[in-house]
């Protein structure tokens, strides 16, 4: 099972991960990213490269399947305006044994941060907004998997 969804509507971890528990494996691991109220942020806005986005997420899943013994994996990513407290991304993986699911989950979110064409803008309560800078720590974490 491979699931990639790019959604402009609110997403839910339950729906994103549905079915991963029913693949006969003993392990399901997941990560959920949530929009944070950082220093007056009221919402974020996610732009993406329509067309390339889905392909790049599916490629991450294919790569995870090549590296670990997976039964299923899912990436669901929100785009457009996202209120503080809402889910931005859910990744999940299912496997027979836990090491595969745990590592694949970390791989998927780490590589998504540096390889998938999304850009995040923060909107503040005073009406201003600013594009978020990429973080050096994200590059470091992603590079662990190469």
């Amino acid at each position, binding site marked *: 099972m491979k699931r990639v969804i790019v959604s402009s509507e609110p997403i839910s971890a339950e729906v994103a991960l549905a079915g991963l528990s029913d693949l006969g494996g003993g392990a399901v691991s997941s990560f959920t*990213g949530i929009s944070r109220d950082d220093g007056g942020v009221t919402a974020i806005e*996610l*732009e*993406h*490269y329509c*067309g*390339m986005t889905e*392909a*790049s997420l599916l490629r991450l899943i294919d790569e995870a399947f090549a590296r670990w013994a997976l039964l299923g994996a899912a990436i669901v*990513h929100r785009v457009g305006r996202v209120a503080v407290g809402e889910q*931005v*991304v859910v990744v999940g993986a299912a496997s027979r044994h836990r090491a595969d699911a745990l590592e694949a989950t970390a791989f998927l*979110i780490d590589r*998504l*941060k*540096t*390889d*998938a*064409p*999304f*850009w*995040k*803008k923060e909107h503040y309560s005073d009406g201003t907004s600013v*594009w*978020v*800078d*990429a973080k050096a720590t994200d590059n470091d974490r992603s590079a662990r998997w190469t």
Partner: protein
Amino acid sequence: MRLVYFAAVREAIGIAFEDLDLPTHLRTIEDAIDWLAAQSSGHALAFQDKARLRFALDQEMVPADSALGDAGELAIFPPVTGG
């Protein structure tokens, strides 16, 4: 060739994409960036810090010294910040 811009690059240039006939002597993405930067003040602003630009040729991320070849779409954008 179709040029596609995202995030701060798109905002600086003021458009999401444009179809341009690039001069045939431009070989790499870097060559194209230098040429594009001379097209308008918006392009110049968008491309002034070349170290902060990332690229995709026909929707594949590639480095700046990649040859344009016969690609149909060049996307130019800041480092990605999803997730």
